[in-house]
Every structure is written in C-alpha cells, then in structure tokens.
C-alpha cells in the first residue's frame, strides 16, 4: 500500500503544498499567492488534496514548514524550519548539492549541505534588502510585474549601480534614476546585482561549495540567477519546481517520519 505524505510550506508571501507517494513521486502540488496569516494555507491544502484526489486521512504524515508553520499546529504532525526543508528538497532534486541559496519573501538563507542534510547556515539580518520583498517594492516603483523583471533585466545594455543596502533608500535611488531617464532595463539589471551582492556576502560566510542550487520564488528570475553566478563564480542550478522545494523537503521529512 502506498504511503502518502504532505509537505506544507507557509511562507510570508505564498503557501505551497506537495504530496509525495512513497517518498519518491510527486503526485500533486499547489501554490496560493498569499502566505502566513491569510486563507492561503487552507486553500493550498484543499487544492493539493483535490489535485491528488486524496483526503486528509490518506496522509500518513503531515509536516509544516515556513514562516507560518506554527499556525498549523494541530493539523500538521510536526513543524520544521524551512532551512532543513529547503536543504532536503534541493538534495532530492540535485543529489550533488552542497550549497543551497533560498531567497524568500522576507529572508535570505544560505545553507551548507553534507550528504543531503543541512549542517550549517546563514540568514540575513532584519533588513529586507536582498529578499523577495525588495524585488516586489522595486517592481512596483518601476511599474512592471515582478515576474517580468528577469526578462527586462536581460535587455540591459549599460551598468547601473544600485548601491543602497536599505530597501527604502534603494527605492529612492531607483526613483532618482528614473527621474534622470535611465533605461528601466538597466535599472532592473542593477537591482539584480544589488540583490546578488547581499546574498553573496552571506554565502561566503558559510563557504560556497559546488554544486550550488538556488531555491524559492526568486530563482525564477533569471536576472538574479545570472548576477549570482557572476558574483559567486559558480554555476547556480535551479529547478522548474523551485517554488515548491521547501514543501517538497517537508514532504520528504514527513515520509522519513512515516516510515519509522
């Protein structure tokens, strides 16, 4: 009989679920664009169960992760940090991984992986610079969709430095560039390099080892990935499942628990 496990990643800006069969096969996934403290987690859970054609009772074990993991106490069997879950999910997708970079809605994490498990990590300080929220703010100022940033940044022809580390100051810097009629694509490319610079600083503290994998929603932004590669001097691997890596890791840990 198959063992189904559910991993739920309640982030600050999105809720993601993955159902795994026997710890190997992803049978369903869901993503709702709102996170902790909203209807997002419930909706994501309902949707993933519906997608899989399964019920809560069919789940052998449920594990919650992410910023809002503790809001699922009582529903989930266990909570774990998103650090370990991203590490485990990345290892499932890339068995050679040693460094995982996750840029989430409100934090940045760099994890050192040994044999598929996180043994050390670094996170950003309280500042939102370098996080997904930083990109959201910049996209709003530039009047572009956050999902278009990668494509537009690739059209840049000139280097523009966004040097402020503070989101609020960087926003002023971008407005000032716009006032000087600087090309939006160049500004976007500058923003990507600014995000990368923050992340690279953290990564060096942990120690970067091949293979480097980037997870989280921001990994869909090819401009940030490219800037990271340039500044790190390492190839940065991503997966089409990048937004689900935390939930996938949670489902994998859940399987580990269920099979004990």
């Amino acid at each position: 009989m198959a063992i189904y496990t559910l991993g739920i990643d309640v982030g600050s800006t999105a809720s993601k679920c993955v159902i795994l069969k026997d710890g190997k096969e992803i049978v369903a996934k869901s993503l709702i664009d709102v996170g902790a403290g909203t209807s997002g987690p419930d909706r994501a859970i309902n949707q993933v169960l519906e997608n899989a054609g399964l019920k809560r009772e069919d789940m052998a074990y449920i594990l919650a992760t992410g910023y809002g993991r503790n809001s699922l106490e009582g529903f989930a069997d266990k909570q774990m940090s998103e650090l370990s879950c991203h590490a485990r999910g990345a290892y499932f997708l890339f068995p050679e991984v040693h460094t995982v970079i996750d840029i989430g809605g409100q934090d940045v994490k760099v994890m050192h992986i040994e044999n598929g498990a996180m043994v050390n990590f670094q996170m950003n300080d309280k500042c939102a610079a370098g996080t997904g929220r930083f990109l959201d703010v910049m996209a709003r100022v530039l009047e572009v969709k956050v999902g278009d940033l990668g494509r537009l940044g690739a059209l840049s022809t000139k280097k523009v430095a966004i040097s402020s580390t503070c989101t609020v100051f960087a926003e002023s810097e971008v407005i000032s560039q716009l006032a000087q009629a600087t090309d939006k694509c160049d500004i976007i490319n500058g923003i990507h390099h600014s995000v990368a610079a923050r992340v690279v600083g953290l990564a060096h503290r942990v120690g970067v080892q091949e293979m480097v994998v980037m997870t989280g929603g921001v990994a869909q932004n090819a401009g940030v990935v490219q800037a990271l590669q340039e500044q790190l001097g390492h190839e940065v691997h991503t997966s089409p499942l990048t937004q689900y890596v935390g939930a996938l890791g949670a489902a994998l840990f859940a399987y580990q628990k269920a099979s004990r």
Partner: protein
Amino acid sequence: MAEMEKTAAPAQEAPAAPMKKAPKPVSPGTAALRKVVSDVYAAAWEAKKAGRPVGWSSSKFPCEIAEALDLAVVYPENQAAGIGAQHDGERMCQAAEDMGYDADICGYARISLAYSAGVETTNESRRMPQPDFVLCCNNICNCMTKWYENIARMHNIPLIMIDVPYNNEVTVSDSQVAYIRGQFDDAIKQLEVIAGKKMDPARFEHACECANRTAKAWLKVCDYLQYKPAPMSGFDLFNHMADVVTARGKVETAEAFELLASELEEHVKNGTTTTPFPEQYRIMFEGIPCWPNLKALFKPLKANGVNVTAVVYAPAFGFVYDDLDSMARAYCKAPNSVCIEQGVDWREGICRDNKVDGVLVHYNRSCKPWSGYMAEMQRRFTEDLGIPCAGFDGDQADPRNFNEAQYLTRVQGLVEAMEQNAKNKAAKEG
C-alpha cells in the same frame, strides 16, 4: 555592561497581595548575591542623604579605588539592564531620542542619559541617586566615552576617565601598561579630592584582595558549566554578573560567590542541576542577552533542550592580578578592547572546555564593536570547531530591535543542524 534584573526584596516590604505570584525560591548563594546588589543601591541612597558624593561608574572601571576611599558608586549599565528586563527600556530609550539622541546609540546609553536627565524609571529597584562624579573606563565600549561626557556635562560634575586603547596584538605591551597605570595614579589623585581624604594603602590593598577573591570565585562558578549536564544555565551567570559588575571589591561578594560555588559543587556531586529541563544540546550564547525579551529567548531553547553552557561575556569580568601594573594589564583584556585573534581564542577555548554543540550569536544593535566582528568569528567557529552557528538580530535594552518569529526560525535551524551533526558524528564513530 552587566546586569541583573533581580535584587533581594527590601527588608520592610509589605506582604505580597494574594493574587501576586509567589517569587520562586532561590538558593542561599543566589539570595546572598541579590542582597549584595540591593545593598549597593541602598548604600548610594544613604550616601546621598548624608550629603556624601555618589559616583556613577562604567562596569570595568577599576572599582578598587573608590572602594578603598569609601565612595558610594552605582553602575548605569546594571541599572539599564534592570530597566530593560522590567520592560521600561523602550520608554526610556524613546525619552532619550526625544532629547535628540539617535536611535542607533547603545540602548544602555539612551536609558542612562534619559535617567540622568531626570526621566524616572518604573523599575523601583533600579532607581539610583543622581551622580556627583562619573568614572569611565572605555575598555568595554567606545560609546561610553561620549555617554559619560554627556552625563558629566548635564550635571556639571567631574569625569574621571581611563582610556584603554584597542589592542591590535594578543599581548599587552609595557608601554600600554605604563599608559594605563599613569591614568590609574591620576584617577586616585582625583578621587582623593572628591573623597576629601588620602588613599590608605592598607585599605586599597584590602579592596584589591577582595576583588581578586571575587574574581577567582566568579571564575570558579563559570567553570562549573563545563560539567555534563551543567549544574546551571549560562543565563544564571548573566544574572549573577550584576554582582561582579557592581561589587567586585566587596568581601560580601566574594563570600556570596564562594557560597554559590559550593552549591554548584553539590549539584555536580549529586548529578543535579537548576536548569529547568533535560540538557540535550549545549551551546555558547554570544553577546549580551536581550534583557527585554528574556522569556522569548529562553522559550525555544527550553523547548528544544538547549542549555547555554558557554558565555564569553561572563568570565571576561574575572580580573585576577598581583599589583597595580598587573591590574592595568588585566583591565586591558576586556572583550571590546582586544583584537579578533584574542577574541576567537577566548571563545573557541570556552567552546571546547564547555563542550558545546553549536553557537547562537546575538547581533546586538546596541553594541556595534561587539557585533561587528561576529560574522568573521562565526565563520571561524564553524571552520575550527566543526559546529553550526546561527545569528539573530536583537538588542540588550531596546525591544524594538528584536523579532521573535525570526529568532524562532534561527533557533530551530540551529537545533536541526546540531541534530544532524550529532548523527554524522555517531555514524563516523560507528
């Protein structure tokens, strides 16, 4: 920079109201230590009432001088920590900001400057008389120089300053000792004028003897964290630091620490501990605690069986010396006046001796010198000791700089990394 949020109950305190939670019983050693701190505050009020001068002193000013001259001295750092722990720090910090002090300045300094300007605290046990002179030694903190200059200017009172330069080398040179010794001699002269009497060498010798006895007993207490399980938590050490800060030169302090050490010895013999949970992991807590958020700091540690068994900040107050020159040398070895090599060496030594599984670093927004080199230190701890480190943002006195949700994730991540390290180690050992 040290602290304690508890003092002994005043002698004539009215019986507790029925609804009030009864205070937790404490050991005779802890009770004696609390009394010492309460007595320091009481003695300052008594001196003020009697028309004798009262001094405010930084925590690592050589207390032996004022002690030998019978001068009453209180400690703004201890006061600020107590105010922070009793949740009056934010209001006091804001009061200082209203006066024009920047929010980026140390929280202790802001609280102290507000109090100095006449803003009363709700923490009655930490009220102290306004100063007639100030004693500042900047070996622990550079912000302190301006902080104390401001207090001196507010009250138009003497500032006795001992400048301990940052040392780029591990050893303390003879010229550095001569520079500081000269300042000690000058401080003695200035304090003789304030006290209105000459220093009695025998009394000074006695104060130094007491300070050394206190330091030795304190270091012995700190060393008990090496045992597995530790007979107490490092958070207890933070609380007991109030005594080593405010009353190093008093015989009562030495006796109280000796009593505490004997209690810990008993715990070790019996395999018991005052830590209120089974010790599963042992960590070094780096930096000063977030006094306003102690419960939030402690809760996830307790829930995960994480005991703090190493704190570099505590033993750093154990000054042991033989004469005035070696006293000057000892006062050069404060955490913020030594180079990173010395700092790493101290911390890695204590991590090894106290057998820690990980490190939790408080990036203290109040203390830039302390937090500034922590990123590099974290990197070295992991490289040299093979243990995970997690850092979190916070503040020793201003609760606005701490975020509980961010802290929880970092602690949980640290616990998961320590768990994995333990598994890897066990697998290697077969």
